[in-house]
Structure formats: structure tokens, C-alpha cells
């Protein structure tokens, strides 16, 4: 019975996807605009009463929901598109946050200036991390990136110039642009009490990031990433400069993480190293895989659910993390390709390669089901 509902839902999603593929440009734009308007209308208290009855909905919309979505889109570039297993993504979030903190408090720069600096600094750190390590095989990359995440946090803890374990407080908010008021909100005034202006800012950045990532996906860069993800050796043989593109993926993913860090730091105004633990990297990775690695709407949905559900079920209190762990296992058993897998991913899975190229299964399934099959995609 479970398989039948699963197939029905998959079938449903497939037909939505087919309809979308056939839609004309004009129709697509209408949907995009509608979605953006819907996102802007989300932080209302009536919706909040249902979505998070026990804590403030607009605050939760900013963090964890919005920030997780932005981080998931960034990690999706690294893991979903280029197929690089990164277990230390939180490091780039931390670098962005500390950029905002240090440059904002010690040098007095304003938010928008720091945003540029933060993005550049994170991209650079992505390159610095990637250069020595991207030649390693996938799973080694995992442990090295995990180590890098811990190193960044430890260095922050041990360095008194950036506050040590006390962190940095008094981070400046984005500057107020106008006192313009609309529907009872001052959307461009960044104070302490109202989280909504930060949320709108975040929506703006998320939209820009989605456009950027989508463009990349459909470009030569994105196609190279797909080739690398499916079979790096074959790609190299076909003339794809794999190392360069892997490094680019790392840097781009890092810069998105850094941007998220800058925006978040300017809202919470005080950060400490303990804000950036390994579990956050693992959570974002779970969001990407759960949602459908490689598919932007998928990872957004995954991040939304992973951020929202624990808040919604506060009533469970103690059991939240327990439930989270169980849900992860169950979801992987029932739907390992994620909630909204990309079309390509579905094809890969059907082929038997495990759905993520060289991250796919290499041990044959139990005797009854296995047939020797090559995994180099020829479709």
C-alpha cells in the first residue's frame, strides 16, 4: 500500500513536471511572479498562527527557514550539481558571518559593502580549501571538508582578535533606506523588533541566487559539472578541465554560503563560534538530499521542511531531534532520490547507478536483484 501511494505521488509530480516543461515562457513568468509575491506575503500573523503557534513566525521565516534555503541552494551547487561531497559547508557560513562582524564593528563598513567583501572572502576561502583537496577522491574530500569546518570554528575560538569564544557583538544592521511604509510594515527600515525587513532582504538575495544558479546550470559550466558528477574520468578524457570546474563549484558554493552568513550576522548582531557547529553542515546536506539533490525547487522544499517542522512540532520538545533522525532514515528508505528529484537524477536512478553518478552505489544489491551493469551514462 505504501508503494502504491508513493507511485501515485511520483506520478503526480511527473505530470506537473511535464506540464511545466511544455509551458511557454510567458506562462512561466506568471508563475515566478506569483511565487515571489506569495513569498513576500508569507510573514503574516494569521499564517503564523498555523505554521508556528509557539514562536514568532516572521522570525522563524528568516532563520532558520530562509537562511537554510539559501544555504541549501549554495550547497546544491557543490553537491548536487558538481557532485562534490562537502561535509564542512558551515565553514563558509561562518566566514561570511565573521566578515560582517569584524569588518562591520572594527572598520565600520556598511552592510552592502561588507556583503561584497564577504562574498569575495568566502569565494577565496573556497579556492584555498579546494586547491589542495579537490584532487582527492570523493570520500576523502568528505572527511577533509569536515575537518576544515572544525578548523574554522576552532580558529575562531582561539583567536582573540575576533573575539575568541566570546565572539563579536554589536554588529551593525543594514542601513535604513527609507521610512516608507506599506501595509503597516516599513520594509526598508532595519530595526530590532521587526524581523520582516530582513526577511524581504533575504527573499531578494535568494531570488538573485536562484537566477544565478539556474543560469549556471544551463550553461557550459553546468553541463561540465554534470559530466564530472556522472563520471569524472570520462569527462577528463572528453577534454573537460575537471579540476578547474570543481574549484569553480567550490568557490561559487562558498560565496553563496558567505552571503548567507553576512545577512544573518547583521540581523542577530552578535555571533560566537558555537553558532557554527558540524551539525549545521549535516543538516543542510540532509536538506539538499531530502529535497532532491541537483534540483533547485527540490532543495528549497527540503530546506523549508527541515527548518520548519521542528519549530512546528515544538510540542514534542525533547523528541524533536529523535524524530528528525528517524525521518531522515525513513525518507531515504522510501524515497532516496529526494522529494523533487531532477529529471536527470531520476534517469540515473533508473539506470541503476544510484542516482548520483560516482556517488552512486558500488556494491551490487543482494543477489536476487543484481545484474552486472556499467555505470557510465550513455543516454
Amino acid at each position, binding site marked *: 500500500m505504501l508503494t502504491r501511494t508513493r507511485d501515485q505521488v511520483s506520478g*503526480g509530480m511527473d505530470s506537473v513536471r511535464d506540464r511545466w516543461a511544455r509551458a511557454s515562457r510567458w506562462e512561466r513568468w506568471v508563475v515566478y511572479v506569483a511565487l515571489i509575491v506569495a513569498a513576500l506575503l508569507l510573514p503574516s500573523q494569521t499564517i503564523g498562527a498555523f505554521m508556528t503557534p509557539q514562536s514568532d513566525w*516572521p522570525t522563524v521565516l528568516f*532563520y532558520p527557514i530562509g537562511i537554510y534555503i539559501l544555504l541549501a541552494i549554495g550547497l546544491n551547487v557543490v553537491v548536487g550539481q558538481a557532485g562534490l561531497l562537502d561535509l564542512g559547508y558551515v565553514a563558509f557560513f561562518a566566514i561570511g558571518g565573521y566578515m560582517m562582524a569584524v569588518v562591520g564593528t572594527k572598520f565600520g563598513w556598511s552592510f552592502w559593502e561588507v556583503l561584497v567583501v564577504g562574498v569575495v572572502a568566502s569565494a577565496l576561502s573556497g579556492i584555498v580549501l579546494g586547491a589542495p583537496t579537490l584532487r582527492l577522491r570523493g570520500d576523502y574530500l568528505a572527511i577533509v571538508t569536515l575537518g576544515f569546518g572544525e578548523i574554522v570554528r576552532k580558529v575562531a575560538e582561539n583567536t582573540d582578535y575576533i573575539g575568541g569564544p*566570546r565572539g563579536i557583538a554589536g554588529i551593525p544592521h543594514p542601513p535604513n533606506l527609507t521610512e516608507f511604509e506599506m501595509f503597516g510594515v516599513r520594509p526598508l527600515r532595519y530595526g530590532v*523588533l521587526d*524581523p520582516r525587513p530582513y526577511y524581504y532582504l533575504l527573499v531578494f538575495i535568494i531570488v538573485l541566487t536562484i537566477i544565478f544558479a539556474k543560469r549556471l546550470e544551463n550553461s557550459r559550466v553546468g553541463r561540465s559539472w554534470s559530466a564530472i558528477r556522472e563520471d569524472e574520468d570520462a569527462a577528463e578524457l572528453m577534454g573537460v578541465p575537471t579540476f578547474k570546474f570543481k574549484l569553480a563549484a567550490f568557490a561559487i558554493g562558498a560565496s553563496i554560503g558567505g552571503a548567507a552568513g553576512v545577512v544573518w550576522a547583521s540581523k542577530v548582531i552578535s555571533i560566537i563560534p558555537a553558532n557554527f557547529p558540524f551539525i549545521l553542515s549535516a543538516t543542510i546536506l540532509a536538506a539538499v538530499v531530502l529535497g532532491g539533490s541537483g534540483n533547485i525547487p527540490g532543495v528549497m522544499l527540503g530546506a523549508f521542511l527541515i527548518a520548519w517542522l521542528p519549530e*512546528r512540532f515544538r*510540542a514534542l520538545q525533547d523528541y524533536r531531534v529523535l524524530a528528525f533522525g528517524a525521518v531522515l532514515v525513513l525518507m531515504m528508505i522510501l524515497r532516496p532520490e529526494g522529494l523533487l528529484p531532477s529529471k536527470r537524477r531520476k534517469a540515473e536512478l533508473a539506470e541503476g547507478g544510484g542516482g548520483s553518478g560516482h556517488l552512486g552505489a558500488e556494491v551490487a544489491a543482494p543477489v536476487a536483484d543484481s545484474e552486472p551493469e556499467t555505470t557510465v551514462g550513455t543516454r
Partner: protein
Amino acid sequence: MRRAFPRGLVAAAAASALVLSACGGDDNGGGDTGGGGDKPASVKLGFMGDLTGENSGIVIPPKNGAQMAIDEYNATNPATKIELVPYDSQGVPEQATALAQQALNQDKIVGLVGPAFSGESQQVGPILEEGKIPSVSASATNVTLGEKGWKYWHRILPGDRIQGTGIGEFIARATKAKKVFVIHDNQDYSKGIADFVTEALKGKGVALETDVIDPKASDYSSTVNKVKPAAPDAIFYGGYYAQAGPLLKQLREAGVTARFLSGDGSLDAGLAKGAGGTNADGAIVGCPCLVDPTGEANEKSKKFVDAYKAKFKTAPAIYSAEGYDAATAFVEAIKAGKTTSEDINAFLSTVDVPGVTKQIKFGANGEPAGGDVYVYEFKGQSYTLLGSSKDAEIS
């Protein structure tokens, strides 16, 4: 298939919406009131802290203390009752901010006891400040909180600078140590208090060495290997009992006999348990709090201890009396007829009544007007009050 899809999906969506709204969800906004001339029948007072997470052991006692103060007041059948609303932040600043927004905007609290930890106080403070909600914390001891110029923030116990200096001076005076080894786990609170102890000791001309442990690791051998050859007269650990206990155990097992001291994070029977056997005997822990399980310190303390034991069936623990005093400050305000948050805040700057731990009175920056650092000595599985750090002697 195509036709089945929209119906099936809509049905599923509707079903899940129903299920989701059925579970969880709960009371918001219950009775109270807003401004207006008449005194409301009841006001809401919040309590924020880690109620269900790892450190709930030091947050539940002050919550109990606060609850007791509120219940005692409500039992007198006053015109305006108080409802204590708990907010479980699990000590996580991000959760605390979302809850603070909720408390301010939806629940309309008029005051907050807490937040319990300094980390969450840093982030919640600005929100309460702008929202003009007074807070009195019973346990957040970080020094910087009092230095931000917040007008609505108060705490009922002295901060880490006073605690660290008090313990440092105690070490120099009462243990007569010439050389002290200071260890901490590089977290905000731990390093803070270790630094203040170090400063105080330097001022007394004591020789010092330091090292750091990783609170997530179990093996402290590199630190033990540094302490042993240094042969200090005393060791001070800044941090929590979950690490202090095992650290003390590993030190004693390596043959280090120096006296062991720590700050309020270690004031818990868990220190002795973690150290094992009799390793914790003679360990001295300082605290800006008064924990007086037998009610010896004064009359009010005895009354408090008896009432607490009767109500909660367990002896008061760390910060319970402080939680009681913090809530008492609000109770006094409401007794005096103040029921809006601004009025209550104005009252708090003038309140001056005796509490269980000290005189309930706040300075201009929200710090308590008085407050001693007390030292406790461990023996077996429990600790006893030695006295104030200024004059207590080691037996």
C-alpha cells in the same frame, strides 16, 4: 493518471493540513489585557531558559524558585494575579529570539525572569530593550551584559568579574598558594571567569600557568602532563562540572594532589560524581549565589528552604533562591500597582526590599547593588557552605 493527480494531491494536502493542525499547536494569548485605566485581572510574566536540554539542571531550580514566589503572591488573592509563562529556549540564542518576539508580540508579557544564559541574553537583550520589557536574570553572569547601557535589563546576582575576583582573592588569601595553574575549556563563560581569576591572582603576585581543554573530548592527558611537572599549589578550573569532574579525576589519578577550585558552573553534586571516589574531597567552588540547603545562613533563607522542600519535594539547588528573588522583584512592582512594562521597569530602579540571597536593589546599570561571592567545600557527594569569599577559612 493525469486526472487522478490533482484530486489525489489535493486530498493529501487537505489531510495533512488537518493532521498538522490537530497536533501540537496551543494556547496563545490567554487572558490579559492592555493599557487602560483599570487594573487587569492578571498579567503575564515570562521565564526563559533551557528547560529541557542538557543544561536544564541549572535552569529548572530558578524556575521553581520563581514559580514559588509567584504562587505565594497569587495565594494572597491580590487584585492583579501573575501568570508565569515558560519559554524553553534550550539555551540556543536563535530559539530565544524567536520566543522573545512571540512573548512580546503575541503573549504581551510585562516582564521576563531570565534569560538564564548569557549567550541568549546577548541576543534577546536588544529586543527587550526596544520592546521596553524589563528583565531580571537569575543566572546570566557575563560581564558585558551590564556594560551595554541597557535600561530594561537587570540581574539579581553579581557578574563574572566580581565572582572571578572574589575567587582569585580567596585563593591568594585562604590557600596561601604561591603558584596556581588555571585551566578552562575555551568557552565564553569559562574563559571569562578564568581570565578574571588570573587577573586577581596576578595582582597578588602569584605565579601562574594556563592550559585549555576541549569540552567535547574525554582525554585531558596533555593538560595533566603539563600540570604535573609544574607542581602548582592550587588549580583553578573555569567551566562546568561535566568537565571539571573528569578533569579532577584524571589529575588525581596522575598523582596531582594540589587543591582544586572552580566557579559556579561546577557547583553541583555532579562534580563529585564525575571525579569519582573521594577525589573531590576538599575541592572548593565559588558562586555569586547562595545555596543553603539547611537554611543556616539567615531566617529568610530557612523559611525559603522549608517552603521549597515542601512544594517541590527536593532541596533547593543552584540559583533557586536567586530565581525566587528575581520573581520577588516583579511581585513587589505589581503589588505596588504597576502593571505596564514601563511602570514596572521604573519601579525596579527604586525597589529596595530584603530578599533571600541579598537585598533586592539594583544599580543604575541593572547590576545588583550588593552581593557576595560565596565559597563551598566538597566532601563525599555533596558540598557545604564555607562562607563569603572575603572571610571564609578552609578547615
